[in-house]
């Protein structure tokens, strides 16, 4: 339904992102601050012009840089909920939701029932007469959503819709929003920097890094098969990218990575191989371990982070090359007297490595 390639060049920043999305599905665009998430939404909404690429929704072409086509925002059937909601401060909740209907020339008598429906849909029918400054953050978020939904957009764009809510409200709104999005027939593009939200909302997750797609796929795919350091960090595992050494050997093989060889159980074939090692698979030693563990890395302890709940397990960040994260028990930390700055050896077994192409 949605097919886009978005290219935008700025002084020190270049965006080049392409993806497709099915009707009724939610695509989460996730990445850190400044990677271009909002830029993606603004290009989709028509608030900015493409330098290259295109935006197609259903059969309709909204933008095509090659053809010089740019349908302005107000002519697109797109709903956009900005990160700061941008409720009109001079209008009541009712008038905010009615704004788009009036602007679009909906007959007067049809406006009230449509606004009431939309407010009902987001669960705040009783707030219609409130001034927009008399709303909590969560209520504002709902009004912004109702204001977009009342126009039955074919493409719904949400920019970090939960980020200005506090922890408690956020959980409640997250649950409701998830339910709502699953019922809506439109294509939704949801922007966030929160890995949790990406995993909760994303039928499809597009991970951005520096204006480009670092990885895209279903949430399970991302969780299981990170293919970039960024995604690995996001999902909390250790990643190596390398090439299998020919010929393939069994029961053990070696993958050449920029950080040195990594021993695995068996290689699935030639070409690029991704290896992940769960933090729990990593064992720490004070002296170099003897023969049996094939993969040993040396470095200092950078950081010890007790893991909630209870701090029974501790994440140990190691200054190895590459940086490895191990997760060990509190007892292990005590037994090794681990402190920051200490020299240690990290090791994992060939059987602890997951591999995929």
């Amino acid at each position, binding site marked *: 339904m949605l097919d886009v390639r978005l290219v935008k060049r700025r002084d020190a920043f270049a965006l080049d992102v392409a993806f497709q999305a099915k009707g009724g599905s939610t695509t989460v665009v996730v990445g850190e601050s400044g990677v271009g998430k909002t830029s993606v939404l*603004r290009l989709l*909404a*028509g*608030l900015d012009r493409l330098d290259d690429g295109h935006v197609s929704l259903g059969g309709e072409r909204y933008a095509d840089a090659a053809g010089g086509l740019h349908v*302005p*925002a*107000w*002519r*697109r059937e*797109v*709903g*956009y909920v*900005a990160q*700061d*909601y*941008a*409720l*009109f*401060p*001079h209008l009541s909740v009712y008038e905010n939701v009615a*704004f*788009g209907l009036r*602007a*679009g020339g909906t007959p007067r008598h049809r406006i009230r029932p449509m606004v009431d429906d939309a407010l009902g849909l987001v669960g705040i029918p009783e707030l219609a007469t409130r*001034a*927009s*400054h008399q709303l*909590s*953050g969560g209520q*504002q978020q709902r009004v912004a959503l109702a*204001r*977009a939904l009342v*126009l039955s957009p074919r493409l719904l764009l949400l920019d970090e819709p939960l*980020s*200005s*809510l506090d922890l408690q409200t956020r959980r409640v709104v997250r649950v409701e929003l998830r339910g709502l999005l699953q019922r809506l027939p439109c294509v939704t593009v949801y922007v966030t920097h929160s890995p949790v939200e990406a995993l909760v909302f994303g039928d499809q997750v597009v991970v951005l890094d520096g204006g480009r797609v670092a990885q895209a796929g279903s949430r399970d795919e991302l969780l299981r098969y990170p293919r970039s350091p960024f995604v690995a960090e996001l999902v909390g595992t250790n990643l190596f990218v390398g090439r299998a050494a020919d010929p393939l050997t069994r029961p053990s093989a070696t993958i050449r990575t920029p950080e040195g060889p990594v021993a695995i159980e068996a290689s699935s074939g030639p070409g690029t191989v991704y290896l992940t090692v769960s933090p729990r698979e990593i064992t720490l030693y004070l002296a170099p371990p003897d023969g049996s563990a094939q993969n040993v890395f040396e470095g200092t302890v950078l950081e010890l982070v007790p893991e909630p709940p209870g701090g029974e397990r501790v994440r140990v960040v190691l200054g190895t090359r590459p940086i490895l994260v191990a997760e060990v028990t509190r007892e292990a930390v005590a037994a090794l007297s681990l402190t920051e700055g200490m020299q240690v050896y990290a090791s994992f077994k060939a059987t602890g490595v997951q591999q995929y192409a």
Partner: protein
Amino acid sequence: MTLGGVLVLLLGLPLLSLVIGIAPGDLVARLQEPFILQALRLSLLTSLASTVIVVAGGLPVAYVLATYDFRGKRAIEAFIDLPMVLPPTVAGLALLVAFGRTGLAGQALGVAGIALPFTTLAVVVAQAFIAAPFFVGAARAGFAGVDGSFLDAAATLRGAPGYVFFRVLVPLAAPSLIAGAAMSWARALGEFGATITFAGNMPGITQTMPLAVYLALQSDLEAAIALSVLLLAISFTVLLTIRLVPSRLAAVAAARARRPAG
């Protein structure tokens, strides 16, 4: 701090000196004089009219200046500010040369049967010429101060540019627009040099309060001062209102715009 005090004295003493020695009763008595009443009425009428013109014309100009960037924009801005620094008599002369019978635009107007000088309309034009920069400047700042996110939101809500201008931009910039309009109104009210040069001085047609003050100065100093104080009082009231009303409006707008801490 001392320097600041000096400046306040520099501004305050002359104004105070004018006001001292004028009996309030005298002011009220002056208000009865028909020629004063006539001048006052004309002043209020023309300054209002010129303000309307300045606002109607200034809104789009300020909008373009606040919104777009283009070659020569700075020059246009400097240009719009020129009337502010031109000696008003020269400004009046310039208006005569442009809109007078033999002027560039005046000839065209003449063909259409319109003669501007010596009419009440000329007073309005002179005031608009002098007062426009005040409104354009304030409106430009006001428009620039409206958060673009509201305009973007309006655009994604099917808001065509014209609709957005009147339903979102103007209401949100209202405090600045009101301040600018009131300021240019006050400036138009005080306009003298350009008016008398371009429009002339005819009681009931082109003789505004400042002209009446000046002519009174020719014969009766005390009367002139009394009239000045009257003008001053009106200006002060307007300026104080400018200061009080928009700050109220701004406070309301700010309260409205308050977002959850984020």
